[in-house]
């Protein structure tokens, strides 16, 4: 790990100001992903701003009947919140399908959104990666791609976004609240929060360099049956090969979002209109323009079958 100086921020705007003041600075909250990357010298901040004391650890009901989840609410606490379990069960399920008990106790809501890809070439500093060093090249091209993305990719990056939580947040049309050093706030729809790689795989989110996430808000409950189905290489503590987040209604209407397929939580609203026509009709729309390799083409069939299983479960 490279040496760094360290401070504790007292308010979100002060944290943003501290970020703006030091070009090499990074925020740390749970630290479960950042510390790992710092040990590998994939992340090399020269200054850490600890935001754990910002009092952003509450889940509150909003005036319009939704929820406002503080940026520092731990994954365990969000998954166990009585309102989330009852009205946003797909979010509880997604959170509980990710990581381990120890990690969920530490990892935060905002940190989960900001976690980096687990692409093996991003992690291997002896190989080129356009995310680590813009323009360096992508060793995943022609490499081991079984776990990598099949939609939303570019010729510069095949990485997936690894989060389960974010897939459920996308399904629920969450919004990300932020603050800047001057106190200015904004709300970023989750659909716009994560960026596709295009020619700039190193740009992963819509956040400005001095912008701090303060909360994630959820609209009013959607009702319906909530399902999060994750398919992985072992039964627990593994990233998704594919995952399906769904809210299904008794009349056959539904909405869907997908994990393990793309550089961001993947949702194609037009796919929802095919819900009554079965899994293949939905995935034909959702996977339009897919770019596969011989190693990851199986994901197209796997996600269709996983969705089929979800639709069957919803009818039961």
């Amino acid at each position, binding site marked *: 790990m490279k*040496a760094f100086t360290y401070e504790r921020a007292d308010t979100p705007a002060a944290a943003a100001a501290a970020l703006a003041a030091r070009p090499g600075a990074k925020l740390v909250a749970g*630290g479960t992903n950042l*510390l790992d990357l710092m040990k590998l010298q994939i992340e090399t901040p020269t200054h850490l701003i600890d935001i754990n004391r910002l009092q952003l650890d509450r889940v509150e009901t909003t005036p319009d009947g939704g929820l406002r989840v503080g940026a520092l609410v731990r994954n365990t606490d969000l*998954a*166990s919140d009585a309102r989330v379990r009852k009205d946003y069960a797909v979010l509880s399920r997604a959170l509980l399908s990710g990581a381990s008990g*120890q990690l969920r106790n*530490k990892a935060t809501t905002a940190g989960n959104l900001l976690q980096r890809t687990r692409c093996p070439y991003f992690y291997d500093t002896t190989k080129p990666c356009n995310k680590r060093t813009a323009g360096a090249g992508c060793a995943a091209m022609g490499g081991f791609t079984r776990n990598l993305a099949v939609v939303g990719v570019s010729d510069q990056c095949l990485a997936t976004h690894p989060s389960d939580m974010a897939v459920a947040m996308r399904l629920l049309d969450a919004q990300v609240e932020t603050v800047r050093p001057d106190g200015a706030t904004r709300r970023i729809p989750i659909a716009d929060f994560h960026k596709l790689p295009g020619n700039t795989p190193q740009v992963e989110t819509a956040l400005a360099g001095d912008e701090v996430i303060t909360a994630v808000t959820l609209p009013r409950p959607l009702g319906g049956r909530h399902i999060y189905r994750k398919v992985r290489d072992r039964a627990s*503590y593994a990233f998704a090969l594919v995952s399906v987040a769904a809210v299904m209604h008794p009349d056959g209407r539904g909405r869907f979002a997908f994990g393990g397929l793309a550089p961001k939580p993947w949702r194609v609203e037009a796919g929802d209109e095919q819900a009554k026509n079965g899994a293949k009709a939905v995935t034909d729309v959702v996977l339009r323009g897919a770019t596969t390799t011989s190693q990851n083409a199986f994901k197209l069939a796997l996600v269709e079958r996983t969705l089929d299983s979800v639709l069957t479960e919803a009818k039961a």
Partner: protein
Amino acid sequence: MPMVDVNAADAAPLSPADVRDLSAAPTMDVGMTVNGRPVSVKVDTRTTLLDTLREHLQLTGSKKGCDHGQCGACTVLVNGRRINSCLTLAVMHEGDSVTTIEGLGSPEQMHPMQVAFVKHDGFQCGYCTPGQVCSAVGTLDEIKRGIPSHASADLTATQRATPDEIRERMSGNICRCGAYANILDAIQEVSRAQS
């Protein structure tokens, strides 16, 4: 590649430029309560909680397995919750209360979870055991507090320490000797005794 003879008489001595000066790295004082006792320690800001416990406080029960949060050997309880002590910095724990395996029990006065691990042969080499025991104590507390898991059929029902629940909740602790079946028996026995 030829072998390097480090004892070669003609080897050039290392120059000061070859030696990294760690004294120049930023340090900070951190105050915590560890196993019920207040401690104050000056650490390089990079020092993980695990290295602080092992190297600064001589509490070598918590183990370093992977150092990346994948194996669980470093699991300790911070303010009562189990976490991977390898993936957090000591400086992030000012004012926190940390419990390690040494704080749970001693050879003379074992914690019930330690007694159960011994009784059920819940280990072979023992390297993962301190993390397993801390994680198991945290797991049963999480079930008692009603925190659901991926294995819970009903998110809103009362949580129970069934074998499926324990297996899922303990998946962050790896045992290379494969003592899982006996670890499960040990945790279930403690769970039954508590209920």
